[in-house]
């Protein structure tokens, strides 16, 4: 049976692993290559890297990180952040990433999804969606709206409509991030996760809100997601990946237990 995936997410800034702290900016929390290697050895099923480097000139530093990761870990990993063209996609795929992830670039220029799928295959194209709960309206019948810039900018696009649209355009996977749940550690937004997962035929990765392994189990059982994205719960040693997997396994969730 297909296993549910546990995917640690690493934010990279100027070639270093970083964590955004409210009102304090970003702090350095380590080397992305070493951390990725540690998670690989601990049984992560996939890894996501987000390049949050502000300047385009420093792109080569990030591509160097991607290449070094690719020579050390032998599981799939995807790369997001700063990808706005087919050339950008090619650069990270050729550097060794398995998939690329686009978010606000896809909202602004949806044709990018088709172009990427045509050039590299749908399996390479992950569309990230940042979603905020709103009052249902004529424009947003599902009550879930697409936002960008970390939730600061409302796009007037219904999340359910957008999920179907990105699938139609050739996305191979959706990474669904709830802005409401993000950072709360109270669990994933299960209503949203299930709504999207039940209405597309491509895998959905649940993101935002993970606080305990039970939350991850809920995301893939009640939420019908294929995978759960995690960040601070493993970055700060609260749980290790083997502990998370053991708890999920004990709850009857199919997870990869040998690596």
């Amino acid at each position, binding site marked *: 049976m297909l*296993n549910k995936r546990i995917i640690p997410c690493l934010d990279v800034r100027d070639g270093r692993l970083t964590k955004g702290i409210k009102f304090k900016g970003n702090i350095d929390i380590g080397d992305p290559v070493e951390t990725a290697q540690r998670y*690989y050895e601990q049984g992560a099923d996939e890894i996501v890297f987000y390049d949050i480097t502000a300047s385009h000139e420093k792109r080569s530093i990030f591509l160097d990180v991607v290449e070094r990761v*690719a020579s050390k870990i032998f599981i799939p990993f995807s790369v997001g952040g700063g990808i706005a063209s087919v050339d950008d996609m090619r650069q990270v795929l050729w550097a060794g990433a398995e998939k690329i992830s686009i978010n606000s670039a896809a909202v602004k220029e949806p044709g990018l999804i088709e172009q990427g799928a045509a050039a590299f295959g749908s399996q390479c194209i992950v569309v990230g969606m940042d979603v905020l709960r709103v009052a249902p309206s004529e424009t947003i019948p599902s009550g879930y709206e697409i936002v960008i810039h970390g939730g600061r900018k409302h796009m007037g696009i219904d999340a359910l409509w957008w999920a179907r649209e990105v699938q139609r355009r050739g996305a191979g996977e959706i990474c669904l991030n709830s802005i409401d749940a993000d950072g709360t550690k109270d669990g994933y937004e299960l209503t949203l996760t299930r709504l999207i997962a039940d209405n597309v035929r491509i895998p959905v990765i649940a993101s935002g809100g993970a606080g305990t392994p039970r939350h991850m189990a809920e995301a893939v059982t009640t939420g019908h997601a294929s995978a759960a994205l995690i960040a601070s719960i493993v970055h700060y040693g609260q749980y290790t990946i083997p502990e998370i997997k053991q708890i999920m396994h004990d709850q009857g969730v199919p997870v990869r237990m040998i690596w």
Partner: protein
Amino acid sequence: MLSILDYRAGNLTSVRRALDYLGIPCTITADPQEIESGSGIIFPGVGAAGTAMHHLQASGLDRVLHEQTQKGKPLLGICLGCQIVLDYSPENDTRTLGLVPGRCERFDDQWTDGQGLPINIPHMGWNNIRLQAPCRLFTDIADEAAFYFVHSYYPAPEAEYVLGTTEYGQSFCSVLGRPGLWAVQFHPEKSGRPGLKLLSNFYQYCLEVAGAQ
């Protein structure tokens, strides 16, 4: 030296990175002489069956593969390279290499998974293998080990060539072939330690064959 077959079908570097990591000498090549002098062939798969066959025929590599496998040169097909060793693929209605009798099929979107939900297509992620016959590639790999899959079509060879199966909606063939001519639907180069072990098992076999000649 292992030859990673270059048929202009996309990015072949992930297999090379894995072999480099294992210290297995390899080269990405389309040169028939280099392939002949190497100890084994890895036939990685990227892209669609139609395009891949077109490149293989245009370059004459289809004949090279037939000749070399007939002479007993070990071959390992991966993903699309697993489907293309069969006779036919409905993807782009393509006549494929015919090194192993059978065809491939598309996953049926009416199939349901363990939760009773319709399966996603492609089949993407980590899944297990149930060996149906002894296979050297799996020496010292635990039965419960999972491998990374990404595909919408699956191989359906004649029964005697089915070496391993996987459950996704239904059971399908995920490992096929005969000793020395193997093909796997998953990506060993992306399957962590069990995948790397499979690649080194293949290389060990190649060395033995080369040593015996």
